[in-house]
C-alpha cells in the first residue's frame, strides 16, 4: 500500500499550514514530537539497565501520527490509546515526570506505579489510557463519545489502536454503534505494518483498512502517518465533522515502527533493507528539515530545542530515580471507589 492516499484529495501543504497556524505552532509541534522521541530513547536505556521492568513498547517512528492528530484537537477533547501509549500521553499533556516515574514503578507515577508502561492515565488532561488488552479500549472510547453526545457537549474523542486490533470483535461492534448513534469519535488505526511478528497481509483480508468504515456507512480517510502535515490536515477535517455534525470517522494512518514490538523483540521478521527504507521517512528528521526549508527553524534554534527537550527528559529521569517506591499499603488503595457517606 502506498503511503499517500490514492483518492487524490489535496492536503494543505506545509506552506499553507504555516500561513494558517503561524511558526510558533509548528515549532511547538516539533518540540512535542522530539519530547516523545527523546523520552522513549531514555526509557529504552533505563530498561536496558534494569530500572524499568516488565514490558516496554516503543512508539519510535510513529510520532508524526500522534503529534499531528493530537495537535488537531483541543485540551478539553479526549484521547484513548492502546498499550503503545507513552507518546499519546505526553502529547495530551501528561507531565513527563509522572510518565517516567510510572515506568520506574514509583509512587509518583501517573498510576502510582500500579499500571506501568501500558496503562498510562491522566484524567486531568483527559487522557483515558493506555490499555493492555488489544482492542479493549475501542468500546470505551465509543462510550465517551456517547457521553458527549448525550450531554450535548462539543468535545471529540480520538481513539488510537494498531492495525492488529481491527481483527477484534470489539472494533466492529464499536464502529457500528458509533455510526448508528452518530458519535463524535475519530478512530485512528495506526497501521505500522506489523502486529508483533505478523505483517498485515497475513492477518487481514483487506489491506486498505479505512474501507472497513464502508461496512458501517461511516466517514473514512487515509493519511500518511509519517507526514505530520497530512495527519494534521485530515484529522482536523474529521474533528470538524465530529464536532459540528456528530459524525465519526475511521482514519488509517500508514506508519512504521522502527523498534521491535517490545524491548525483547529483535524483529527478525522484516529485512534490514525494509527498515532502512522506512527510516528515510523518519519524522524526527524530515519534519525539522521541512521547518528549515520553510525558513522558520535555524540550526541554532534546532540545537536549542534539542537541548531543552533533553533537559526536560533528564529531569524526568532524575525525578523518577529519586521518587520512592509505593508503600506496600498502596496495594489495597483504589480497588473500589470510596463510598460517599
Amino acid at each position, binding site marked *: 500500500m502506498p503511503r499517500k492516499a490514492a483518492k487524490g484529495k489535496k492536503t494543505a501543504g506545509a506552506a499553507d499550514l504555516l500561513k494558517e497556524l503561524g511558526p510558533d505552532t509548528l515549532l511547538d509541534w516539533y518540540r512535542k514530537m522530539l519530547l516523545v522521541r527523546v523520552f522513549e530513547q531514555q526509557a529504552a536505556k533505563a530498561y536496558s539497565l534494569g530500572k524499568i521492568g516488565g514490558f516496554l513498547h516503543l512508539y519510535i517512528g510513529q510520532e508524526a501520527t500522534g503529534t499531528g492528530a493530537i495537535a488537531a484537537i483541543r485540551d478539553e477533547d479526549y484521547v484513548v490509546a492502546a498499550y503503545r501509549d507513552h507518546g499519546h500521553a505526553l502529547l495530551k499533556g501528561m507531565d513527563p515526570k509522572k510518565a517516567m516515574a510510572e515506568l520506574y514503578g514509583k509512587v509518583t507515577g501517573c498510576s502510582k506505579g500500579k499500571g506501568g508502561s*501500558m496503562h498510562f492515565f491522566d484524567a486531568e488532561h483527559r487522557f483515558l489510557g493506555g490499555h493492555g*488488552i488489544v482492542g479493549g479500549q475501542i468500546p470505551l472510547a465509543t462510550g465517551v463519545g456517547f457521553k458527549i453526545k448525550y450531554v450535548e457537549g462539543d468535545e471529540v474523542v480520538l481513539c488510537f489502536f494498531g492495525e492488529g486490533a481491527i481483527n*477484534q470483535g470489539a472494533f466492529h461492534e464499536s464502529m457500528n454503534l458509533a455510526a448508528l448513534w452518530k458519535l463524535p469519535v475519530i478512530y485512528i488505526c495506526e497501521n505500522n505494518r506489523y502486529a*508483533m511478528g505478523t505483517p498485515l497481509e497475513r492477518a*487481514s483480508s483487506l489491506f486498505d483498512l479505512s474501507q472497513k468504515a464502508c461496512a458501517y456507512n461511516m466517514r473514512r480517510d487515509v493519511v500518511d502517518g509519517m507526514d505530520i502535515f497530512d495527519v494534521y490536515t485530515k484529522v482536523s477535517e474529521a474533528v470538524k465533522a465530529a464536532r459540528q455534525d456528530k459524525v465519526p470517522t475511521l482514519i488509517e494512518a500508514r506508519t512504521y515502527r522502527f523498534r521491535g514490538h517490545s524491548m525483547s523483540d529483535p524483529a527478525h*521478521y522484516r529485512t534490514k533493507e525494509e527498515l532502512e527504507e522506512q527510516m528515510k521517512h523518519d519524522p524526527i528528521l524530515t519534519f525539522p528539515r521541512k521547518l528549515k526549508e520553510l525558513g522558520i527553524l535555524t540550526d541554532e534554534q534546532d540545537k536549542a530545542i534539542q537541548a531543552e527537550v533533553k533537559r526536560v527528559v533528564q529531569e524526568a529521569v532524575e525525578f523518577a530515580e529519586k521518587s520512592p517506591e509505593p508503600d*506496600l499499603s498502596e496495594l489495597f488503595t483504589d*480497588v473500589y471507589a470510596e463510598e460517599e457517606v
Partner: protein
Amino acid sequence: MAVLTYLQAISEGMREEMRRDESVVLLGEDIGVYGGAFKVTKGFIDEFGPKRVIDTPISESAIVGAAVGMALYGFRPIAEIQFADFITVAYNQIVQNAATIHYRYGFPVPIVVRAPSGAGVHGGPFHSQNPEALFTHVPGLKVVAPSTPADAKGLLKAAVRDDNPVLYFEHKYLYRRIKGEVPEDDDFTVPIGVADVKRPGRDATVITYGSTVHTALQAAEDLSAEGAEVEVLDLRTLRPYDEQAILDSVGRTNRVLVLHEASKTGGVGAEIAAFITENAFEKLDAPVMRLGGLDTPVPYSPPLEEYWLPSKERVVGALRRLLEY
C-alpha cells in the same frame, strides 16, 4: 529420562502428539513464523507446516470458536491464548459453546486451550492474571494446571487425547526457571483428575497447584528443620479434582492449608475447603485455612507485585498457625 525445562516439556508434549496424530493442529497469534510469544512453538512450523501450525489474527473469540468448529469434525486443535489474561475475549466461545455442545448435541469437543498465566514477571494488571476459577465453575470444562516439567508434558498429552474441552494453564514464571526429569515414552501421560503427593508428611497438608507447589515445597523444607512434616498435595487437575487424594491426605494429617497464586476470594481454594468441610469434618483438628494472592489486581510495581504474591514466608506463617491451632 531427559531433563527439560517446564517450557521444553510443554513443547515436547505438543510435538509428540502432533507426530502421533495428524488431527492435532495448533492455532494462535504468532505461534508459527514467530515461534510464539514465549517460543513454546519454536520450530513447529518447520516440522509440521503452516497447515497445522496456524498463525491467526488477534481474534481470541474466533481462535477458540474455530477450534471448536474443527473439533466437531475430528480435529484435536490446541488453541493458544498468548497470555491467560486475554482469555476473557474468548470467554463466550469457551463457556457457552465448548462447554455445552456435548451436553446439548452429543458431539465431543476435544480442544485444548493453552494459556500462560501468572505473575512474577512485572507484567502489570493485564499480563499477570490467574483466571482458572472463572472456568472451574463451568460444568463441561476440564481445567489443569501443572507445576513440574513431567506433569506439564503428561497433562498436555492427556489433554490432547481427552474428548472434552481442556483448559491448560501453564505458569509463565516457571517456563525457564523449573527443570526436571521427564519420561520420554511416547505414551506417557498424566491422567486428568489425579492429584500427586509432591512431598509426604504427617502434620499438615498444603493442597495447591501450579507455581505455588514450589512455594509450598520450600515452606515444607523450612518447617521440616523445625520438626514439622508437611505434606504437599499437588492437585494438577482443578476440575474434576481428585476427591479421594484430598480425603486421603486429610486422613493422614488432619490439618489443611489450601494455597494458590490466584486471589483468595472466590478462588479454587474456596471449593476445596468447602469439599473438605462437607466430607471430612470429623477428621479435622483445625479449620481449613486458605492462602492466595491478595485480593487486588496484580500491580506493575515490582515491590507491590512481590507483596501481592503468596510468599514462602506467608506460607510458613499460615502453616505455623495451622500447626499450633
